[in-house]
């Protein structure tokens, strides 16, 4: 802990080092949220930029502050928004659960392979993550299409007589969501499972516990942190997902990311988009704070060893 003391003695240099990324994040990450909040109280306007300013200095030095609560009133009163937020949370929750159910056995299997092959397997799982997200979503468009690969195959072997409707509905939305977010679940799970001491399981089996009991009393509780981290890594971005509902979702797929996009790009209603974003941040702030507290504990625990 020598070096810690040294850094403490070098206050000015330390401050300078900290301030560079700190200032960047304050300016480009934190401050923008307050601007979003501010503009969510503005009104749409035919101007550049297309919104009214909240404060106007009038004659005689009178400062006029106009807060338009209409956007929030609209979000709260029109049940289209309530439905959309709810369905976004539902979709994200379902995606998270499916990723967990599918990702856990995969992560577990990789963690239990011998180290030489483990690395190859991990690379195979992570390779799709490195290739383009957009192109991987596009790949499913070719598979799920009415005359796509899956339908041609099923027709070819005579299992079905006419093409199934696999595309542009909730099925395709969920499928591609799980596909795209799966690596975010597997990686945190793997990094927790691989650290687990295998002797614990041997001890359990020596003491007469069956594999299922050993799994539920030892493996699962020990990988709790990996489950939390992976679930948050999937759930939070999935709530605001735009590309997947836009490309493979159905015409009546309700996702809030798509609503925000449409308000901004199609209706040119920036204040409304800002209000939609503000409500989304309010919904996500609890899971984000949870993930953050959890990661801090995790890393600090590791650092003190």
């Amino acid at each position, binding site marked *: 802990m020598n070096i810690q003391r040294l850094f403490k003695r070098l206050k000015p240099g330390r401050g300078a080092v900290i301030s560079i990324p700190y200032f960047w994040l304050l300016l480009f990450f934190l401050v923008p949220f307050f601007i979003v909040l501010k503009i969510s109280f503005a009104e749409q306007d035919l101007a550049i930029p297309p919104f009214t300013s909240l404060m106007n200095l009038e004659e005689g030095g009178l400062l006029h502050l106009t807060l338009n609560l209409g956007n929030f009133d609209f979000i709260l009163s029109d049940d289209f928004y309530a439905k959309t937020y709810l369905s976004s949370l539902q979709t994200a929750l379902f995606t998270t659960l499916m990723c967990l159910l599918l990702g856990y056995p995969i992560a577990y299997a990789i963690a239990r392979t011998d180290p030489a092959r483990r690395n190859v397997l991990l690379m195979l799982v992570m390779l799709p993550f490195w290739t383009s997200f957009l192109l991987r979503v596009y790949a499913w468009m070719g598979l799920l299409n009415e005359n796509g690969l899956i339908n041609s195959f099923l027709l070819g072997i005579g299992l079905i007589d006419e093409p199934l409707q696999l595309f542009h509905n909730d099925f395709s939305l969920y499928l591609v969501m799980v596909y795209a977010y799966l690596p975010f679940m597997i990686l945190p799970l793997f990094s927790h499972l*691989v650290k687990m001491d295998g002797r614990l399981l041997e001890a359990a089996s020596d003491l007469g516990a069956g594999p299922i009991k050993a799994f539920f009393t030892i493996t699962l509780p020990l990988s709790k942190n990996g489950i939390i981290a992976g679930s948050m890594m999937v759930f939070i971005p999935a709530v605001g997902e735009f590309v997947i509902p836009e490309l493979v979702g159905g015409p009546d797929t309700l996702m809030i990311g798509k609503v925000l996009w449409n308000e901004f790009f199609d209706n040119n209603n920036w204040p409304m988009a800002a209000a939609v974003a503000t409500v989304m941040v309010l919904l996500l702030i609890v899971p984000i704070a949870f993930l953050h507290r959890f990661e801090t504990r995790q890393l600090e625990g590791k650092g003190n060893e």
Partner: protein
Amino acid sequence: MNNQKLSPFLKGMLLLGLLFLYIPIVSLIVYSFNDSKLVTVWGGFSTKWYASLFQNEQIISAVELSVQIALASATAAVTLGTIAGFVLARFKRFPGSSLFAGMMTAPMVMPEVITGLSMLLLFISMQQLIGVPAERGFFTIWVGHTTLCMAYVSVVVRSRLLEIDQSLEDAAMDLGARPLKIFFVITLPLVAQAIASGFLLSVTLSLDDLVMTAFLSGPGSTTLPQVIFSKVRLGLNPEINALASITVLVVGVLVIVANYLMLNSQRKRERALAAAMRESSAS
């Protein structure tokens, strides 16, 4: 965890998972060699979509812009992210440290429609107040991608720093080295590998980013994902299949080579360490 035999269930799940991950990618590549314009109807083998891809000036110029932005963002992200990772791993507590750590985690998970919109509104407000940035384009996209990527770099660098032994830095200090020298001579080489993978990760994230870029780009700056998205929105497109196949090939080769090099240097390090241990115990 030790290496016991995998149960048939686990083996099956692993196989299923890999099939699930790879079938779409393989089908993408196969159909890129399809002669027919209807992407999913096989019309014979052909490489004509690759030829037409390389003549598509819109795509070529978008690739050029995307690569420039990716390299510029990755460079900035690695610089800022390494400092941030170092601060988080070594300084631990300082005034505002918890806010700082929070701001480092959040960009990774925050939906991009939110970060994109908020950053755009910042730039618009800045322009009204001080006139900078004058327009949306390279600079605004660069700032957005840097902010996103530096979070990933800081996580990679931070966890590597927490892994390595701090006694090397302590020893250098006891021998009278100055902090800056310690950082550049001891710490930086130890995390070089983490920085390299942070750089690669940043390049791929930047090359792939659509949503944030859509908010931050201007009329004259269309990146590759934007071109792909506008084409794909209209339906299947054989040129995009060809483009995807090239992407998969390039990324695949890069990841495999990087992985191989990393394993090799790890083995070398372990061997050197073992040899040093033997020598010290012999003397």
